[in-house]
């Protein structure tokens, strides 16, 4: 069974082709990276999976439910958007309550569903802090914690570390990889940052709206006889990465 499956997705904005026959599968319990430069089509893929964009051609399945049946498909999905989406005037707890209610949970159910994660992610002291008083790293942690409400099976994160310092970035990555190891969670991590990929991850490389490779990172390195993902990327796209 797969956590996420994209089959033959084509997508246009007006007449401009943005995605061209995009397909990849995220097996259960996998940390999977969708890697591509700016403008490659990553956020369009994200928009289609989260139903912010309407599918024009192809199919999306989440935990074996078609996205057309979004009430089942999106039920076990947690989402972290690229832009900050917390209400800065509310406390962390109030933000969590609000998001929990959008998942149909009562306030108590919301906190109970993430009681371990609140401690593990280091936010138990911050629950009653007004969100605007938190630094960027902590705000991102709140967004990730919020996405974990209601025992998610799939987390979708669109460039979640943009604007964060190196330590905050890798703290978040380490935390999520550990969650994938210890629970039944799968993660789709969308990024343009090559240093966020490790050899145990699954990966799909997107370039000009097409998936040019889809594999496990370690297998990809072996296949092209390269030592890093950026070398593989440069080899496949003939693009210089500065």
């Amino acid at each position, binding site marked *: 069974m797969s956590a996420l499956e994209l089959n033959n997705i084509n997508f246009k904005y007006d007449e401009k082709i943005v995605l061209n026959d995009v397909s990849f599968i995220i097996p259960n319990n996998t940390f999977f990276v969708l890697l591509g430069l700016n403008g490659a089509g990553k956020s369009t893929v994200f928009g289609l999976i*989260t139903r*912010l964009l309407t599918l024009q051609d192809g199919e999306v399945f989440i935990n074996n439910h078609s996205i057309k049946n979004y009430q089942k498909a999106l039920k076990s999905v947690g989402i972290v*958007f690229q832009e900050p989406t917390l*209400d800065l005037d509310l406390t962390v707890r109030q933000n969590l309550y609000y998001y929990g*209610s*959008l998942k149909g949970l009562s306030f108590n159910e919301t906190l109970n569903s993430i009681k371990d994660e609140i401690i593990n992610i280091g936010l138990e002291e911050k629950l009653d802090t007004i969100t605007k008083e938190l630094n960027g790293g902590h705000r991102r942690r709140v967004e990730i914690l919020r996405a974990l409400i209601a025992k998610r099976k799939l987390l979708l994160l669109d460039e979640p570390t943009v604007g964060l310092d190196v330590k905050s970035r890798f703290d978040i990555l380490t935390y999520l990889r550990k969650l994938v190891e210890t629970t039944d969670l799968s993660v789709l991590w969308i990024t343009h940052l090559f240093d966020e990929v490790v050899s145990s991850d699954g990966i799909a490389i997107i370039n000009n709206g097409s998936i040019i490779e889809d594999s496990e990172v370690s297998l990809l390195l072996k296949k092209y006889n390269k030592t890093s993902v950026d070398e593989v990327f440069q080899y496949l796209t003939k693009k210089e990465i500065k």
Partner: protein
Amino acid sequence: MMIYFNCAKGIIYKELLRFFKQKSRFFSALVRPLLWLLIFSVGFKSALGLAIIPPYETYITYETYIVPGLVGMILLFNGMQSSLMMIFDREMGSMKILLSSHINRNFLLFCKMLATAIVSTIQAITFLIIAYFYGIEMSLQGYILVIPVVLFSSLVLNAMALFLSSVIKQLENFATVMNFVIFPMFFLSSALYPLWKIKDSSIVIYTISSYNPFTYIVEFIRFTLYSKFDFTNFVIILLLIIFSLLLAFIGYSSKNIFKKSRK
């Protein structure tokens, strides 16, 4: 069913929290109608003679006449402010949280409109209380009956505002909407002058005002404050809410939202 209840509770909870935290929003919503009541109406009181027209059974002062219109003004401007916040939320990204929920999108949007309507109702009641102490008294029955009517009318205006927010691509365009939609909607209605008085001066403005949905909202509030039920108004408002909700839901469908976010 519990899922929907929790969802509605959460959205209303958040709107009320924001409302009580942003005290300036509460006061600024009251200042506008109070300026009209306490200052504007003073000058007009002597200049404008009002005949006895339904629902009034006796001669009334100009201040008494404009109170329902000013309640409508609170609902109208609040609805538009909420629409402005929707555009802001959409531009900033927090709207995406709402729209990517697994719960039916139309239900979520309805809850958002209901939450704004509750906030508007609190403001409208506060205004009526101030007006009472200023000397504009209605019957207790009128005050009680007007609460659901204000809530319902606010829903209509919020749905219209929601539709507007779905067609406005950028926050900057909102000023245009203020000038070309909100102000004409308010001034070309029976909020400040009775329709017969407008008819005396201009048939064109009278005709436009008689087709303005806001006129029906103001008249519905006016009749209810005097414990009178106008069936025609009720039917028109019922049709208005169905039509405006439909427009708002279409405006926020995925197909339409993506067009806006990309341009």
